[in-house]
């Protein structure tokens, strides 16, 4: 295998990530690295830099939600495709929102942060429910609508993910999305959740996940593979 005399960053990147393993190219790159100081330095620099690149990419944070204006425009475009006489999606959605429940709608409008310190559990009355499977894997799914935070409506400026509007949990009503979320939580904690309850923390929608032993975490609507969106830990009131 013939490779460039000068260090080739692309080739070194594939070598560093093991993509050339077992190929003649790997042997050629390895030879360069051991016999050419520039290749050796470039290889070391790149390996050191890849962690920094991952860190930089992580600063972009969770996926951006679709802006309301773009969503409205998209719905209008889809409405235009419908046969005439069909109720537009936008109107149906408004009607549906009216019956979902005051708790969810009100909580979605709140701008609430979550404290880094654990929230003491203080379960309050149920407010809403939705229809999705009762179990996902070994995890029982419930929809108590309980408020797990003692300070209803209170906002903290100290947040695990920045102060922002807490979205409702509609996204997690999709069993596939919920399954990915639970997998992400399990990956993070190393143990399978016993249950996941659609409720709220400090009046903001949260999926409260309980593990064997009783420990709990609250995750937000963006919870997904690679981004469990952990809002806070929960501890029982003494």
């Amino acid at each position, binding site marked *: 295998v013939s490779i460039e005399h000068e260090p080739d960053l692309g080739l070194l990147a594939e070598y560093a990530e093991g993509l050339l393993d077992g190929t003649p190219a790997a042997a050629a790159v390895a030879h360069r690295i051991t016999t050419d100081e520039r290749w050796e330095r470039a290889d070391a620099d*790149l390996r050191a830099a890849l962690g920094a690149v991952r860190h930089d990419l992580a600063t972009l944070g969770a996926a951006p939600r679709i802006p309301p204006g773009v969503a409205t425009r998209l719905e209008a475009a889809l409405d235009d*495709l419908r046969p005439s006489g069909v109720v537009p999606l936008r109107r149906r959605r408004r009607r549906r929102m009216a019956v979902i429940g005051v708790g969810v709608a009100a909580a979605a409008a709140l701008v609430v942060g979550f404290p880094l310190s654990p929230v003491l559990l203080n379960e309050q009355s149920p407010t809403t429910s939705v229809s999705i499977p009762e179990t996902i894997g070994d995890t029982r799914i419930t929809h108590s609508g309980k408020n797990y935070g003692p300070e209803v409506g209170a906002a903290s400026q100290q947040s695990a993910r920045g102060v922002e509007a807490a979205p409702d949990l509609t996204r997690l009503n999709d069993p596939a999305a919920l399954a990915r979320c639970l997998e992400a939580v399990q990956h993070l904690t190393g143990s399978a959740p016993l249950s996941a309850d659609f409720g709220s923390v400090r009046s903001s929608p949260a999926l409260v996940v309980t593990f064997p032993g009783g420990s709990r975490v609250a995750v937000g609507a963006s919870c997904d593979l690679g981004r469990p969106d952990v809002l806070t830990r929960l501890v029982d009131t003494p």
Partner: protein
Amino acid sequence: VVSTSPPGGYRDDRALLAAHVSGDPTAFGELIGRHRDRLWAVALRTLSDREEAADALQDACISAYRGASGFRGDSTVTTWLHRIVVNACLDRVRRRRVRPTVPLDAVTADAAVTAEPTDAVTTRLVVRAALAELPFDQRAAIVLVDLEGHSVAEAAEILQVAEGTVKSRCARGRARLAVLLGHVHLGNLAGADAVPPTRPRGGEGM
């Protein structure tokens, strides 16, 4: 027509798509409503331009609406939708020669919403700018795998390439980002991915 829940309650993606093909006027909207945030994220992060991303997402949804009967079921519906969105983004890049930009409103929104230190906002700005500098293939692979959390296998299905190709695009893209973000200095480096860095590091003047 009054919206009603189907007799069985929850309908999965395939059921919604099948219902749409069968003439259910609300099924497609429900399907898109379920996935639009993730599709938007892919479009925005791939094109780095809000307006272009909105256009691409709309093009993709219309294309999916009209082409739903062609869904063969050999992938998940979400993979199929993501594939259509990525292709719509690629079409825009090719047709309009989109020059990826980092919209000012995104930066302003970050600063306003999170009230984070300026350097954190700045870091995101340069990362977005560096990402926008990557060739489309590398950028799309990194957006799907590193930012959106898809597995390499899923990304390969979306991009309709071999898994090894996705890995290669990610590896080369990350290496190029390492240069663009100033983690690796060009020095004696030559070769395909040599590009000037986007920001200086450690006062070394690059």
